[in-house]
Protein backbone atom coordinates (compact mmCIF):
# COMPACT_ATOMS: atom_id res chain seq x y z
CA UNK A 1 0.00 0.00 0.00
CA UNK A 2 2.45 2.67 -1.14
CA UNK A 3 -0.39 5.01 -2.08
CA UNK A 4 -1.68 4.96 1.49
CA UNK A 5 1.74 5.68 2.97
CA UNK A 6 2.40 8.61 0.62
CA UNK A 7 -1.04 9.93 1.45
CA UNK A 8 -0.07 9.71 5.10
CA UNK A 9 3.15 11.59 4.35
CA UNK A 10 1.33 14.38 2.56
CA UNK A 11 -1.15 14.50 5.40
CA UNK A 12 1.61 15.16 7.94
CA UNK A 13 2.81 18.27 6.11
CA UNK A 14 -0.55 19.99 5.77
CA UNK A 15 -1.34 22.56 8.43
CA UNK A 16 -5.01 23.26 9.11
CA UNK A 17 -5.89 26.92 9.64
CA UNK A 18 -8.95 28.51 11.17
CA UNK A 19 -11.02 31.37 9.81
CA UNK A 20 -13.98 32.16 7.58
CA UNK A 21 -12.42 31.06 4.29
CA UNK A 22 -14.28 30.02 1.15
CA UNK A 23 -12.84 27.61 -1.38
CA UNK A 24 -14.05 27.94 -4.96
CA UNK A 25 -15.79 24.75 -6.10
CA UNK A 26 -14.58 25.30 -9.63
CA UNK A 27 -10.97 26.51 -9.49
CA UNK A 28 -10.01 25.90 -5.86
CA UNK A 29 -8.90 29.46 -5.14
CA UNK A 30 -9.44 30.47 -1.52
CA UNK A 31 -11.17 33.75 -0.67
CA UNK A 32 -11.91 35.36 2.66
CA UNK A 33 -15.63 35.02 3.36
CA UNK A 34 -18.06 37.68 4.54
CA UNK A 35 -20.47 36.89 7.41
CA UNK A 36 -24.01 36.38 6.08
CA UNK A 37 -25.45 39.28 8.15
CA UNK A 38 -22.90 41.74 6.76
CA UNK A 39 -23.70 40.81 3.15
CA UNK A 40 -26.09 43.30 1.44
CA UNK A 41 -29.50 41.96 0.44
CA UNK A 42 -29.35 40.07 -2.87
CA UNK A 43 -25.55 40.31 -3.13
CA UNK A 44 -23.68 37.30 -4.51
CA UNK A 45 -20.10 36.40 -3.67
CA UNK A 46 -18.04 35.39 -6.69
CA UNK A 47 -14.57 33.94 -7.04
CA UNK A 48 -12.13 36.67 -8.12
CA UNK A 49 -10.31 34.31 -10.49
CA UNK A 50 -13.04 32.33 -12.25
CA UNK A 51 -16.24 34.22 -11.27
CA UNK A 52 -17.93 31.06 -10.01
CA UNK A 53 -20.51 31.71 -7.27
CA UNK A 54 -19.14 31.16 -3.76
CA UNK A 55 -21.45 29.67 -1.14
CA UNK A 56 -20.95 28.80 2.48
CA UNK A 57 -23.55 26.16 1.69
CA UNK A 58 -25.44 25.15 -1.42
CA UNK A 59 -28.77 27.02 -1.40
CA UNK A 60 -31.85 24.97 -0.43
CA UNK A 61 -29.66 21.89 -0.22
CA UNK A 62 -31.79 19.99 2.33
CA UNK A 63 -35.12 20.82 0.68
CA UNK A 64 -33.89 19.73 -2.73
CA UNK A 65 -32.34 16.55 -1.35
CA UNK A 66 -35.52 15.61 0.53
CA UNK A 67 -37.82 16.21 -2.42
CA UNK A 68 -35.69 14.05 -4.74
CA UNK A 69 -35.30 11.28 -2.14
CA UNK A 70 -39.04 11.12 -1.40
CA UNK A 71 -39.95 11.11 -5.12
CA UNK A 72 -37.37 8.37 -5.75
CA UNK A 73 -38.71 6.26 -2.85
CA UNK A 74 -42.27 6.49 -4.21
CA UNK A 75 -41.27 5.65 -7.78
CA UNK A 76 -39.19 2.74 -6.53
CA UNK A 77 -42.45 0.81 -5.95
CA UNK A 78 -43.69 0.82 -9.60
CA UNK A 79 -40.09 0.34 -10.76
CA UNK A 80 -40.06 -3.04 -9.04
CA UNK A 81 -43.72 -4.02 -9.36
CA UNK A 82 -44.13 -3.28 -13.08
CA UNK A 83 -42.32 -5.20 -15.82
CA UNK A 84 -39.27 -3.46 -17.30
CA UNK A 85 -39.15 -5.49 -20.51
CA UNK A 86 -41.30 -7.81 -22.58
CA UNK A 87 -40.02 -10.43 -25.00
CA UNK A 88 -41.98 -11.94 -27.84
CA UNK A 89 -41.00 -15.19 -29.46
CA UNK A 90 -42.73 -17.31 -32.11
CA UNK A 91 -44.82 -18.99 -29.42
CA UNK A 92 -45.56 -16.54 -26.62
CA UNK A 93 -45.02 -13.15 -25.03
CA UNK A 94 -43.51 -12.84 -21.57
CA UNK A 95 -42.78 -9.87 -19.33
CA UNK A 96 -39.78 -9.42 -17.05
CA UNK A 97 -39.46 -7.44 -13.84
CA UNK A 98 -36.13 -6.33 -12.35
CA UNK A 99 -36.17 -9.10 -9.73
CA UNK A 100 -37.45 -11.61 -12.29
CA UNK A 101 -34.48 -10.88 -14.54
CA UNK A 102 -32.06 -11.49 -11.68
CA UNK A 103 -33.91 -14.70 -10.78
CA UNK A 104 -33.64 -15.92 -14.40
CA UNK A 105 -29.88 -15.27 -14.44
CA UNK A 106 -29.51 -17.14 -11.14
CA UNK A 107 -31.53 -20.14 -12.35
CA UNK A 108 -29.52 -20.24 -15.59
CA UNK A 109 -26.38 -20.66 -13.48
CA UNK A 110 -24.97 -17.18 -14.23
CA UNK A 111 -24.45 -16.44 -10.53
CA UNK A 112 -21.76 -13.83 -11.02
CA UNK A 113 -23.95 -11.83 -13.40
CA UNK A 114 -26.95 -12.24 -11.12
CA UNK A 115 -24.93 -10.72 -8.27
CA UNK A 116 -23.71 -7.80 -10.46
CA UNK A 117 -27.25 -6.99 -11.61
CA UNK A 118 -28.62 -7.40 -8.07
CA UNK A 119 -26.06 -4.94 -6.70
CA UNK A 120 -26.60 -2.41 -9.51
CA UNK A 121 -30.41 -2.57 -9.73
CA UNK A 122 -31.59 -3.40 -6.22
CA UNK A 123 -28.84 -2.80 -3.66
CA UNK A 124 -27.47 0.51 -5.02
CA UNK A 125 -30.82 2.35 -5.36
CA UNK A 126 -32.03 1.15 -1.93
CA UNK A 127 -28.69 2.06 -0.35
CA UNK A 128 -28.75 5.50 -1.99
CA UNK A 129 -32.31 6.31 -0.94
CA UNK A 130 -31.74 5.10 2.65
CA UNK A 131 -28.31 6.75 2.97
CA UNK A 132 -29.45 10.12 1.59
CA UNK A 133 -32.50 10.09 3.87
CA UNK A 134 -30.23 9.32 6.85
CA UNK A 135 -27.73 12.05 5.85
CA UNK A 136 -30.44 14.66 5.31
CA UNK A 137 -32.20 13.70 8.56
CA UNK A 138 -29.02 13.77 10.67
CA UNK A 139 -28.02 17.29 9.55
CA UNK A 140 -30.84 18.72 11.66
CA UNK A 141 -31.59 15.95 14.17
CA UNK A 142 -28.24 14.42 15.05
CA UNK A 143 -25.52 16.86 13.92
CA UNK A 144 -22.83 15.46 16.24
CA UNK A 145 -23.44 11.83 15.44
CA UNK A 146 -20.53 10.00 13.69
CA UNK A 147 -19.54 12.86 11.38
CA UNK A 148 -16.61 11.04 9.78
CA UNK A 149 -18.67 7.92 9.04
CA UNK A 150 -21.40 10.08 7.49
CA UNK A 151 -18.79 11.83 5.31
CA UNK A 152 -17.52 8.41 4.18
CA UNK A 153 -21.07 7.20 3.50
CA UNK A 154 -21.66 10.20 1.24
CA UNK A 155 -18.46 9.52 -0.71
CA UNK A 156 -19.50 5.87 -1.09
CA UNK A 157 -22.91 6.67 -2.58
CA UNK A 158 -21.28 9.16 -4.97
CA UNK A 159 -18.94 6.44 -6.23
CA UNK A 160 -21.52 3.67 -6.64
CA UNK A 161 -24.40 5.91 -7.77
CA UNK A 162 -23.70 5.65 -11.49
CA UNK A 163 -23.98 1.88 -11.53
CA UNK A 164 -27.76 1.74 -11.13
CA UNK A 165 -28.02 2.91 -14.77
CA UNK A 166 -26.81 -0.59 -15.73
CA UNK A 167 -30.22 -2.22 -16.17
CA UNK A 168 -31.55 0.78 -18.11
CA UNK A 169 -28.69 0.42 -20.61
CA UNK A 170 -29.16 -3.35 -20.84
CA UNK A 171 -32.86 -3.06 -21.70
CA UNK A 172 -32.17 -0.26 -24.22
CA UNK A 173 -29.51 -2.39 -25.93
CA UNK A 174 -31.58 -5.59 -25.86
CA UNK A 175 -34.63 -3.82 -27.31
CA UNK A 176 -32.42 -2.45 -30.09
CA UNK A 177 -30.78 -5.82 -30.83
CA UNK A 178 -33.73 -8.19 -30.70
CA UNK A 179 -35.75 -7.03 -33.68
CA UNK A 180 -36.70 -10.08 -35.69
CA UNK A 181 -40.38 -9.26 -36.09
CA UNK A 182 -42.70 -12.05 -35.01
CA UNK A 183 -39.80 -14.48 -34.59
CA UNK A 184 -38.26 -12.67 -31.63
CA UNK A 185 -38.48 -9.12 -30.32
CA UNK A 186 -37.92 -7.24 -27.07
CA UNK A 187 -39.61 -4.04 -25.93
CA UNK A 188 -39.14 -1.71 -22.94
CA UNK A 189 -42.13 -1.62 -20.55
CA UNK A 190 -43.39 1.11 -18.14
CA UNK A 191 -41.38 -0.27 -15.19
CA UNK A 192 -38.21 0.83 -16.96
CA UNK A 193 -39.49 4.40 -17.14
CA UNK A 194 -40.09 4.38 -13.37
CA UNK A 195 -36.71 2.81 -12.73
CA UNK A 196 -34.90 5.36 -14.93
CA UNK A 197 -36.71 8.12 -13.00
CA UNK A 198 -35.53 6.58 -9.69
CA UNK A 199 -31.93 6.52 -10.93
CA UNK A 200 -32.02 10.12 -12.18
CA UNK A 201 -33.73 11.34 -8.97
CA UNK A 202 -31.17 9.66 -6.69
CA UNK A 203 -28.36 11.22 -8.75
CA UNK A 204 -30.00 14.64 -8.44
CA UNK A 205 -30.51 14.10 -4.71
CA UNK A 206 -26.80 13.29 -4.24
CA UNK A 207 -25.83 16.37 -6.27
CA UNK A 208 -28.13 18.56 -4.16
CA UNK A 209 -26.77 17.37 -0.83
CA UNK A 210 -23.97 19.59 0.44
CA UNK A 211 -21.53 17.46 2.50
CA UNK A 212 -20.31 20.58 4.29
CA UNK A 213 -23.57 20.45 6.28
CA UNK A 214 -22.22 17.32 8.00
CA UNK A 215 -19.44 19.40 9.56
CA UNK A 216 -21.46 22.44 10.55
CA UNK A 217 -20.43 23.55 14.07
CA UNK A 218 -18.25 20.46 14.26
CA UNK A 219 -14.69 19.95 15.48
CA UNK A 220 -12.33 22.16 13.50
CA UNK A 221 -9.82 19.52 12.45
CA UNK A 222 -8.07 16.27 13.23
Amino acid at each position, binding site marked *: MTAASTAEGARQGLTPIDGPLLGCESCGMVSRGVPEDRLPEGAVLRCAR*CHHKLHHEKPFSLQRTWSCVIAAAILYIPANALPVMSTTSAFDTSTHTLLGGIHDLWVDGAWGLAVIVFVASIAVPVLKIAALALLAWSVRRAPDWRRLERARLFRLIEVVGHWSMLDVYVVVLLAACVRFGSLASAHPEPGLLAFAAVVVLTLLAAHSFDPRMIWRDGPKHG
Partner: protein
Amino acid sequence: MTRAADSLVVCERCDQAYRWIPLEAGAVARCTRCEAVLGRGHRIGIETVLALTVTALVLFFVVLFSHVISIRLGGTTVESTIPGAVMASWDEGDWLVAVATAVTALIAPAMYILLRLYVLVPIAAGRIPFGFGPCVRALHQVSRWNMLEVMTVGGLLSLVRLAALAEAAPGPAMFALGGLTILLAAIEAAGLRHLWWYVP
Protein backbone atom coordinates in the same frame (compact mmCIF):
# COMPACT_ATOMS: atom_id res chain seq x y z
CA MET B 1 4.59 23.96 -12.70
CA THR B 2 3.76 23.88 -9.00
CA ARG B 3 1.49 25.80 -6.76
CA ALA B 4 3.15 28.39 -4.51
CA ALA B 5 4.14 26.78 -1.21
CA ASP B 6 2.28 29.29 0.91
CA SER B 7 -1.02 29.14 -1.01
CA LEU B 8 -4.21 27.97 0.65
CA VAL B 9 -6.59 25.15 -0.11
CA VAL B 10 -10.06 24.55 1.31
CA CYS B 11 -11.57 21.08 1.52
CA GLU B 12 -14.62 21.20 -0.77
CA ARG B 13 -16.33 18.57 1.37
CA CYS B 14 -16.09 20.13 4.83
CA ASP B 15 -14.66 23.66 4.42
CA GLN B 16 -11.54 23.00 6.45
CA ALA B 17 -8.74 25.33 5.24
CA TYR B 18 -5.10 24.25 4.87
CA ARG B 19 -1.79 25.80 4.02
CA TRP B 20 -0.78 23.89 0.92
CA ILE B 21 2.50 22.05 0.33
CA PRO B 22 3.79 20.83 -3.04
CA LEU B 23 3.10 17.10 -3.47
CA GLU B 24 5.44 14.44 -4.79
CA ALA B 25 4.35 12.65 -7.95
CA GLY B 26 1.79 9.98 -7.05
CA ALA B 27 1.10 11.37 -3.57
CA VAL B 28 -2.48 11.99 -2.46
CA ALA B 29 -3.30 14.66 0.12
CA ARG B 30 -6.42 14.01 2.17
CA CYS B 31 -8.35 16.23 4.53
CA THR B 32 -7.43 15.39 8.14
CA ARG B 33 -11.02 15.99 9.19
CA CYS B 34 -13.26 14.28 6.61
CA GLU B 35 -10.67 12.29 4.60
CA ALA B 36 -11.77 13.71 1.23
CA VAL B 37 -9.04 14.07 -1.42
CA LEU B 38 -7.59 17.60 -1.39
CA GLY B 39 -5.15 17.15 -4.23
CA ARG B 40 -2.81 14.79 -6.03
CA GLY B 41 0.82 14.96 -7.08
CA HIS B 42 0.50 14.46 -10.82
CA ARG B 43 2.59 11.95 -12.67
CA ILE B 44 1.53 13.05 -16.14
CA GLY B 45 1.95 16.46 -17.72
CA ILE B 46 -0.46 18.48 -19.77
CA GLU B 47 0.89 17.15 -23.10
CA THR B 48 0.22 13.58 -21.98
CA VAL B 49 -3.33 14.46 -20.94
CA LEU B 50 -3.81 16.10 -24.33
CA ALA B 51 -2.56 12.97 -26.12
CA LEU B 52 -4.94 10.79 -24.09
CA THR B 53 -7.84 13.11 -24.87
CA VAL B 54 -7.14 13.00 -28.63
CA THR B 55 -7.07 9.18 -28.43
CA ALA B 56 -10.36 9.29 -26.51
CA LEU B 57 -11.91 11.42 -29.30
CA VAL B 58 -10.91 8.86 -31.94
CA LEU B 59 -12.36 6.00 -29.87
CA PHE B 60 -15.53 8.00 -29.27
CA PHE B 61 -16.08 8.24 -33.06
CA VAL B 62 -15.80 4.44 -33.20
CA VAL B 63 -18.47 4.20 -30.47
CA LEU B 64 -20.73 6.59 -32.40
CA PHE B 65 -20.48 5.08 -35.85
CA SER B 66 -19.92 1.35 -35.40
CA HIS B 67 -22.07 -1.35 -33.87
CA VAL B 68 -21.79 -2.55 -30.25
CA ILE B 69 -23.46 -5.91 -30.78
CA SER B 70 -24.43 -7.91 -33.82
CA ILE B 71 -26.79 -10.85 -33.54
CA ARG B 72 -27.88 -13.43 -36.06
CA LEU B 73 -31.10 -15.37 -35.96
CA GLY B 74 -32.54 -17.47 -38.77
CA GLY B 75 -30.35 -15.90 -41.46
CA THR B 76 -31.08 -12.29 -40.45
CA THR B 77 -28.36 -10.17 -38.87
CA VAL B 78 -29.13 -7.14 -36.71
CA GLU B 79 -26.32 -4.74 -35.84
CA SER B 80 -27.07 -2.07 -33.28
CA THR B 81 -25.17 1.10 -32.46
CA ILE B 82 -25.61 3.11 -29.24
CA PRO B 83 -27.17 6.12 -31.06
CA GLY B 84 -29.43 3.63 -32.86
CA ALA B 85 -30.50 2.08 -29.55
CA VAL B 86 -31.33 5.55 -28.17
CA MET B 87 -33.41 6.34 -31.27
CA ALA B 88 -35.20 3.00 -30.96
CA SER B 89 -36.26 3.66 -27.36
CA TRP B 90 -37.36 7.18 -28.37
CA ASP B 91 -39.53 5.65 -31.11
CA GLU B 92 -41.03 3.24 -28.55
CA GLY B 93 -42.24 6.32 -26.65
CA ASP B 94 -39.81 5.87 -23.75
CA TRP B 95 -38.62 9.45 -23.93
CA LEU B 96 -37.19 9.62 -20.39
CA VAL B 97 -35.16 6.45 -20.94
CA ALA B 98 -33.97 7.72 -24.33
CA VAL B 99 -32.97 11.13 -22.95
CA ALA B 100 -31.27 9.66 -19.84
CA THR B 101 -29.29 7.24 -21.99
CA ALA B 102 -28.38 9.89 -24.58
CA VAL B 103 -27.22 12.35 -21.91
CA THR B 104 -25.19 9.91 -19.80
CA ALA B 105 -23.71 7.72 -22.55
CA LEU B 106 -23.39 10.09 -25.53
CA ILE B 107 -23.76 13.81 -24.81
CA ALA B 108 -21.86 14.00 -21.50
CA PRO B 109 -18.84 11.98 -22.73
CA ALA B 110 -18.80 13.94 -26.02
CA MET B 111 -18.89 17.28 -24.18
CA TYR B 112 -16.26 15.99 -21.76
CA ILE B 113 -13.83 15.14 -24.56
CA LEU B 114 -14.54 18.23 -26.71
CA LEU B 115 -14.39 20.74 -23.83
CA ARG B 116 -11.12 19.24 -22.63
CA LEU B 117 -9.63 19.54 -26.09
CA TYR B 118 -10.88 23.12 -26.41
CA VAL B 119 -9.15 23.99 -23.11
CA LEU B 120 -6.01 21.84 -23.41
CA VAL B 121 -4.92 22.59 -27.00
CA PRO B 122 -4.43 26.36 -26.45
CA ILE B 123 -2.86 25.82 -23.00
CA ALA B 124 -0.34 23.35 -24.42
CA ALA B 125 0.50 26.02 -27.01
CA GLY B 126 0.91 28.64 -24.27
CA ARG B 127 -2.36 30.54 -24.72
CA ILE B 128 -5.50 30.85 -22.61
CA PRO B 129 -8.62 29.88 -24.57
CA PHE B 130 -11.59 32.25 -24.85
CA GLY B 131 -14.17 31.48 -22.17
CA PHE B 132 -11.76 29.38 -20.09
CA GLY B 133 -13.65 29.80 -16.79
CA PRO B 134 -17.11 28.79 -18.04
CA CYS B 135 -15.56 25.84 -19.93
CA VAL B 136 -13.86 24.46 -16.80
CA ARG B 137 -17.08 24.94 -14.80
CA ALA B 138 -19.03 23.11 -17.51
CA LEU B 139 -16.44 20.30 -17.38
CA HIS B 140 -17.18 19.81 -13.67
CA GLN B 141 -20.89 19.33 -14.41
CA VAL B 142 -20.35 17.16 -17.47
CA SER B 143 -17.95 14.76 -15.72
CA ARG B 144 -20.67 13.97 -13.14
CA TRP B 145 -23.05 12.79 -15.82
CA ASN B 146 -20.61 10.76 -17.85
CA MET B 147 -21.43 7.07 -17.32
CA LEU B 148 -19.62 5.47 -20.23
CA GLU B 149 -18.00 2.95 -17.88
CA VAL B 150 -21.44 1.67 -16.88
CA MET B 151 -22.43 1.44 -20.57
CA THR B 152 -19.34 -0.77 -21.14
CA VAL B 153 -20.53 -3.27 -18.54
CA GLY B 154 -24.12 -2.90 -19.82
CA GLY B 155 -22.92 -3.84 -23.32
CA LEU B 156 -21.11 -6.92 -22.04
CA LEU B 157 -24.12 -7.96 -19.97
CA SER B 158 -26.45 -7.60 -22.97
CA LEU B 159 -24.04 -9.68 -25.02
CA VAL B 160 -24.14 -12.51 -22.47
CA ARG B 161 -27.93 -12.41 -22.29
CA LEU B 162 -28.24 -12.44 -26.09
CA ALA B 163 -25.83 -15.34 -26.45
CA ALA B 164 -28.48 -17.53 -24.83
CA LEU B 165 -31.00 -16.55 -27.54
CA ALA B 166 -28.98 -16.32 -30.75
CA GLU B 167 -25.53 -16.00 -32.24
CA ALA B 168 -24.23 -12.74 -30.73
CA ALA B 169 -20.86 -11.05 -31.27
CA PRO B 170 -19.30 -7.82 -29.97
CA GLY B 171 -18.72 -5.06 -32.54
CA PRO B 172 -15.89 -2.48 -32.78
CA ALA B 173 -17.83 -0.08 -30.52
CA MET B 174 -17.68 -2.60 -27.66
CA PHE B 175 -13.87 -2.64 -27.73
CA ALA B 176 -13.78 1.15 -28.13
CA LEU B 177 -16.00 1.44 -25.03
CA GLY B 178 -13.52 -0.66 -23.03
CA GLY B 179 -10.64 1.56 -24.14
CA LEU B 180 -12.58 4.75 -23.44
CA THR B 181 -13.43 3.60 -19.91
CA ILE B 182 -9.72 3.34 -19.09
CA LEU B 183 -8.75 6.56 -20.92
CA LEU B 184 -11.48 8.69 -19.33
CA ALA B 185 -10.56 7.37 -15.87
CA ALA B 186 -6.93 8.43 -16.47
CA ILE B 187 -7.98 11.86 -17.80
CA GLU B 188 -10.37 12.35 -14.86
CA ALA B 189 -7.61 11.50 -12.36
CA ALA B 190 -5.50 14.29 -13.89
CA GLY B 191 -8.11 16.70 -12.48
CA LEU B 192 -9.05 20.24 -13.47
CA ARG B 193 -7.75 22.47 -10.71
CA HIS B 194 -4.14 22.49 -11.93
CA LEU B 195 -5.32 24.03 -15.21
CA TRP B 196 -5.80 27.27 -13.29
CA TRP B 197 -2.09 27.44 -12.55
CA TYR B 198 -1.56 28.29 -16.21
CA VAL B 199 -3.82 31.32 -15.94
CA PRO B 200 -1.88 34.50 -15.06
